[in-house]
């Protein structure tokens, strides 16, 4: 490090965004910066934002791939609104993202990419380097491509291979800005390219070249540090929502003494759950990549009947395909978890973008009367606990459970305090005992109304279930009118009774006040930040954020009744709002909705909330 030591400023929190062409390695750059941030001990949340094409047309706006990280010395709940530092690897990515850089923020660009053709493709009339359009930013216009080539020239790599490490030059510049160590990243290179030492060497050199460049050229610049966050004692790691979801099920299987079965078909943005569980054969995980979405869920129903903890994973269009089979799991009253990682809809919609698109589909998207439990995870780490909870409720109440996550929390990562499986709540599957003379397929627990799970192979419990209506208790096929009414009521009541076993709905903030902000699922971070910012200004605003959608926690009405106004915020046109209007029609609701495939910004939320407060 430079002995002269630039001025080091300590910050509470910072947002850095890496953007480039979709082949520029921005996701890797972002995740290496995240791992490095973890090693410093900051709390953080990340948000990868990329196009659905693997390689969209080169240097175009549609091909821009981005990765945003928000880190701080206090708990961080969202990936942040606006960047303090923007790294743009080509003109198109600059043009698409400059509006997300705060005035006076640091802008790092690869000046070598600002050639006529690329400038034109990005839609600029002239190079932004040639006019004063970037004057409000602290600009580091580095010849990244040229310097990358030079720094590895002695290694004899061909041009194409050398240029692959351009992103590490940019990463090196950010390491200088935030006073970071190389070591964790070096270790990654050594692991990742263990079979190719020259590539390890090249990446190390380029990373350092970026650092040294920044140190010498930007010597007058201020650098920053963010103190370690004061986190609870424990072992921590970085985790994405999809991995956390997969692990929640692994934990639930172990805790319940069952084997885990996943039947799934790849679909963005849910595929990582399938990939992760395919990698867990060592833990007896039977992941089955089915021929289609329907086979995914039907095989899971077969596995559930045969006694495994069975799950299926998908995203919106796949949930549509699974509808009929969810009805089958519902009427056979088998434990099953369906994970829907929501994305922009309808139809193929916006596969890589986030949206709270499927709440209505999850609640009502089936033929006939019949409820399932619907849960929603609210952050990357929270996915772990709600995958676990979904499995627990399915097994203990003998019913399908739909777990909603979304593209934002599924791909985003957070710092995760690793729990011990033994410390997680107990799971007691309702397995019937061999040769129980009183066993009957639809005999119910008087408290929960759950039937018992008689697993093939168990002596004395042979029985048949299926999609046809069954007679109460005995399970024979029955078309009796009164019986259908009774069975339908049982299935309904069974799910409603789950509310008795749920924790009370809690608030962030006081339990009475002027405005209650209501949200559910993956919008938690932004809503929390917005509400806490306003609380800091002395405003009487609280957040009521739901993980349990169906049934709702029992105290929901009581919570709502203590506020003058209620504003329901969603990344859709108001699906939860409409549900609340059905369930709790006695309240008047305001709403704030957005449908852009992007998470909420704190600024837009506070603007809306202040507006409501002014009306009171």
């Amino acid at each position, binding site marked *: 490090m430079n002995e002269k030591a630039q001025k080091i400023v300590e910050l509470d929190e910072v947002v850095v965004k890496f953007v480039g062409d979709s082949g520029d390695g921005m996701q890797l750059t972002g995740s290496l910066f995240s791992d490095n941030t*973890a090693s410093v001990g900051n709390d953080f949340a990340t948000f990868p934002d990329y196009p659905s094409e693997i390689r969209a047309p080169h240097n175009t706006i549609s091909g821009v791939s981005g990765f945003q990280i928000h880190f701080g010395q206090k708990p961080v709940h969202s990936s942040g609104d606006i960047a303090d530092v923007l790294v743009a690897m080509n003109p198109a990515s600059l043009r698409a993202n400059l509006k997300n850089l705060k005035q006076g923020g640091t802008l790092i660009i690869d000046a070598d990419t600002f050639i006529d053709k690329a400038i034109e493709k990005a839609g600029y009339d002239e190079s932004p380097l040639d006019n004063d359009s970037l004057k409000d930013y602290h600009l580091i216009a580095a010849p990244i491509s040229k310097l990358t080539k030079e720094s590895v020239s002695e290694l004899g790599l061909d041009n194409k291979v050398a240029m692959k490490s351009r992103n590490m030059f940019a990463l090196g510049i950010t390491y200088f800005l935030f006073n970071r160590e190389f070591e964790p990243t070096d270790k990654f290179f050594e692991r990742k390219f263990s079979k190719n030492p020259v590539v390890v060497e090249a990446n190390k050199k380029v990373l350092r070249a970026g650092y040294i460049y920044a140190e010498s050229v930007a010597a007058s610049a201020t650098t920053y540090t963010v103190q370690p966050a004061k986190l609870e004692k*424990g072992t921590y790691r970085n985790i994405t929502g999809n991995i956390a979801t997969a692990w929640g099920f692994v934990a639930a299987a172990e805790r319940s003494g069952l084997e885990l079965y996943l039947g799934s078909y790849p679909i963005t943005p849910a595929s990582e759950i399938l990939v992760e569980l395919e990698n867990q054969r060592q833990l007896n995980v039977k992941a089955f990549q089915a021929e289609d979405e329907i086979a995914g869920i039907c095989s899971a129903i*077969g596995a559930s009947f045969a006694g495994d903890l069975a799950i299926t994973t998908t995203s919106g269009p796949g949930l549509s395909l699974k509808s009929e089979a969810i009805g089958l799991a519902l009427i056979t009253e088998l434990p099953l978890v369906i994970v829907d990682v929501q994305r922009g809809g309808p139809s193929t919609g916006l596969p890589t973008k986030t949206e709270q698109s499927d709440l209505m589909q999850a609640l009502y998207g089936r033929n006939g009367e019949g409820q399932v439990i619907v849960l929603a995870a609210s952050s990357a780490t929270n996915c772990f606990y709600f995958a676990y909870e979904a499995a627990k409720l399915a097994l203990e109440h003998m019913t399908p459970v739909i777990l909603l996550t979304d593209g934002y929390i599924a791909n985003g990562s957070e710092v995760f305090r690793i729990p011990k*499986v033994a410390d997680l709540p107990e799971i007691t599957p309702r397995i019937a005992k061999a040769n129980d003379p009183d066993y009957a397929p639809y005999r119910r627990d008087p408290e929960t109304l759950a039937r018992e799970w008689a697993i093939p192979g168990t002596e004395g419990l042979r029985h*048949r*279930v*299926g999609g046809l209506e069954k007679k109460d208790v005995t399970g024979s*096929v029955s078309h009796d009118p009164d019986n259908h009414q009774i069975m339908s009521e049982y299935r309904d009541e069974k799910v409603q009774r789950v509310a008795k076993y749920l924790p009370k709905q809690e608030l962030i903030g006081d339990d009475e006040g002027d405005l209650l902000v209501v949200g559910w699922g993956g919008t938690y971070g932004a809503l929390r930040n917005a509400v806490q910012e306003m609380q800091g200004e002395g405003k009487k605003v609280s957040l009521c954020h739901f993980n349990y959608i169906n049934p709702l926690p029992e105290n929901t009405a009581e919570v709502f009744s203590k506020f003058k106004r209620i504003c329901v915020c969603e990344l859709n046109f108001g699906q939860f709002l409409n549900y609340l209007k059905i369930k709790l029609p006695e309240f008047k609701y305001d709403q704030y909705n957005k449908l852009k495939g992007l998470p909420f910004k704190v600024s837009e939320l506070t603007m809306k909330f202040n507006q409501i407060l002014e009306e009171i």
Partner: protein
Amino acid sequence: MSKDTIITQELTKEDFVSDQMVKWCPGCGDHAILSSLEKVLPQLGKRKEDILVVSGIGCSSRFPYYVNTYGFHGIHGRALAIASGARVANPELSIWVASGDGDSMAIGGNHFIHAIRRNLDINLMLFNNEIYGLTKGQYSPTTPLGQTTKTSPFGTIEEPFVPGELCIGAQGTFFARVIDSDPKAMAELFLASAEHKGMSVVEILQNCVIFNNGAHNYLKDREHKADRQLWLEDGKPMIFGKENNKGLILNGTELEVVTIGENGITEEDILIHDSSTANPIIHLQLVRMKAPEFPVAFGVIRNVKKPSYEQLMVQQIEDVKAKSKIKCADDLFRSGTTWEVE
């Protein structure tokens, strides 16, 4: 559920008859199929508890309710998908799927080819009556070209599937064909399919007495059936006919019907059946044989050895476990980059 389960008593056909009333039409071919399976199940050496019958939707799919084992009546076309999950979840069960030509060839066509390709150890009884019975008489994917039905009042204009051709095309390891009027042969074929480790398909040419009555009469006709059915037996020449003098030879790459004693043909010239050869060419030609140029082939047409999906899964789990340092969920969660906060 271990392999060493002791069979404590001799089971009989009656043990497998459930207490449910059988609701198929009188004269329906399904009755014979049910009776044949009930006869075979006691011979499997399995407890009743270790047998699972799965179905989709259609007349045939009422099957699980009538067998006194574990049973699952699924949704239309998905029987094989449901059975696949049960198979992977519990490799010890004996799994039987009852499915019709609508269930398996139309709405469930995708699951049919993929279950076969994976070679899951499932015994599929494919009830082929060449019609949709439960929905009252619409044509199915196996209805012969030109046949008039409720939804083809001027005759169908689409070529039917030959289930055996699809099965072998999907790399099937076991395919057999039988007719519902021959319960003895059916029972033998069911037993052979149970003994086959991997996916087995037994196509049963089955009569729908209401909507397609007599669809297979051409083959059943007492006077001519010897000329119209070729019964295949391993190691035996492919000979048929009332006089037992007709046979199949390979002329170039095509099968041809010849008469022994004519044009210098002797029994030596007739093809010998080998169901176990991996090369599917002859098997494919056998399943495709159609009247009137050819007899229709019956018996075990293809029966080749290949590891089953669930065997490979179990093996893979064992192999990965032996090598992995991760023995429980806690190990997994602490693998890779972690850090401590004091």
